[in-house]
């Protein structure tokens, strides 16, 4: 688990920058740091028992019962085509998509960060593994480069 290294003063500054739409949930996926806009994220949770459902897509892991709601779980790495194997840790970001509530399994949750738009580069020439339709841009943070992804469009092709 990566530690959060920011000091208290900076934290206060961040808190005052209340642009919640500029707040992103940073997570790592297969070694790369990604960021999902907080507005799209409903919640995060740790996976318990996934009920497997036979489906044709291999990134589809199953469904869970989240407080009475059935949520489909997919493996984001597999969805992005980053890997062939399902994620082991079971950290799920529950996002709202046009097709409903989807839980995306990621490698690790890092932090919630406010990223100013000036730090975001919508440059498609950077070679990432994320298909360009998901990519919102590349953010420059003190962590490094963060791929900002539109989590709500991850099931765009379905």
């Amino acid at each position, binding site marked *: *688990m990566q*530690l*959060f290294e920011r000091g*208290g003063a900076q*934290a206060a500054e*961040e*808190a005052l920058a*209340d642009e*919640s*739409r500029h*707040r992103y*949930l940073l997570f790592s996926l297969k070694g790369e740091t990604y960021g999902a806009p*907080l*507005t799209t*994220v*409903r*919640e*995060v*949770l*740790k996976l318990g028992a996934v009920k497997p459902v036979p489906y044709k897509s291999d990134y589809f892991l199953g469904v869970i019962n989240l407080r009475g709601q059935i949520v489909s779980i997919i493996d984001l790495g597999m969805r992005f085509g980053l890997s062939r194997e399902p994620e082991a840790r079971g950290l799920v970001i529950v996002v709202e998509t046009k097709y409903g509530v989807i839980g995306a399994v990621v490698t690790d*949750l890092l*932090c*919630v960060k406010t990223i100013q738009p000036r730090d975001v580069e919508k440059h498609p020439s950077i070679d990432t593994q994320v298909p360009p339709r998901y990519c919102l841009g590349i953010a420059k943070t003190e962590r490094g480069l963060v791929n900002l992804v539109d989590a709500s469009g991850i099931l765009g092709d379905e």
Partner: protein
Amino acid sequence: MKLGRWTVGMKLWTLTSVLMLDVLFVGLMQSSTSSALMRQMRDITDSHLPAVQSMAMLDMRRDGVRAVVLDSLLGASGQDWERGRQAREEIAELSDAMDAHLGVLVSLPLLPETRKAVEEARGVVRRYLEAAKDVLTLVRDQRPDESRARLLDFTKSFEALEAQLGALGSQIALEAKRSKEKAEQLMARASITNTFLLVCGVVLGLVASVLVVGSHVRKLTGIVTRLSDEAGQVADGAVKVNGASQNLSQAAVEQASAVEETVASMEEMAATISKTADNASKSHSVTQKGEEEAQKGKQVIAHMLAAMEGIEASNSKLQSLVQLIQEIEAKTQIINDIVFETRLLSFNASIEAARAGVHGKGFSVVAEEVGKLAVLSGKAADEIRSLLDSSTAEVAKIVSSTQESVLAGKNAFRDCEQAFNSMGDTLQRIRDSVEQIATATQQQEVGVEQTNKAMVAIDHATLNNSKSAETLSALAVDLERGADSLKNSIASMRALVSGDTAQGAAQRSSPRRAPGSSRDPESGDAAGAGVTRVDPCVSRSDSRWERAEALQS
């Protein structure tokens, strides 16, 4: 069979007795014949010859008397007194002589007829002599006529005497002839008898010699030859015995020297053995000390192992500490989980705050603070974790290193223990070996003593052997001498029996002797016997012998 036990001696006795009897008979016959002949001879010599001699003398005297008478008659002039006296003396002498002769005749052992004739002759002689004397007297007395008449008487008596003497002589001659005939008869008889007896004897002798002597002589010859051979073999044997006795003596000398060497070696061996025994006892004490040291070492090791075990116990306590740490780690893991959940919660809170928009700002701060707290907790937990990890690592390191050390130490100590054990075993084995060596050396000492005794016994036996060799040699010399004398006896017997010369016998037997004497080159005996005395054995003047003999006694 009685005849079988008729030994040669008896046969010879019989033969010789028979021959002796025969000879005796012959001798007796001869002696009787001889005595008879002697009697005849005596007759002849004692009676006949004197008789003849007397007769001859009588004849002579008679003739002498006649001669004197005639002579005196012739010269009877009567004047020659001296002549007449001489004549008378002569007649007296002659008459004495004739008387003497007649006396002799009478005294002779003649036959009675002869004696009678002698007596008659005596008478005639007396008359004759008287006539002669008378003549002479008459002549002396110068009475020639009476003397001539007396001369006629004288002549008649002379003729009568002549006749008588002739008769006596013929009588005597007859007697002699008779004696001779008798002797011849006796001779004839005796010769016949003797011839018969001699023939008998010869025949008997021939028969006996053919039957007895011949065969026995053959047997004797055979026996003599065999004896000669045997004597030769005895002589050879004597030479061989001498050679053997010399060999024996030499062997005894060699044996004695070998025994001396052996005794010397035994002494050296005894010295070596006693040295070995000393070394063994020293080694024994040393190994005993070594064993004690090994025991002490083992004890030390046991202590060390106990200490090791103490360390291991503390190590295991450390391990329980590790367990504790792990439990703490587990708890921190729980804390981490809680922190994670809290983070999630804060994320969710932030998300909700973001979704709440403006209203959620304070909440988002709270969420963030919560998140930070969670992060801090997480950090603390992580620090704790890391501390715990490092502690665990350290402790694990310590434990493992201690374990390793303990293990190594245990192994080392076990190795030491094993080494000590093996050393102890080795020392034990050494001690056993040393004990065996000590026992063996004791046995060796006993053996050496026994060998020494045996050596002394062997030496005695050797001395006896050499003495026996000496005796044997002396006996061989005697044997040789005896063989020589035997050979001489046999040679003489052979000479006696078969007429072979001693040289031939010696030549026959000497070739057999040559090999025997060639075996003995040191013999300088020119007689070819080859038997020499053996030198006496070496004297024992060595001090070791006295010791050994003292041991023996």
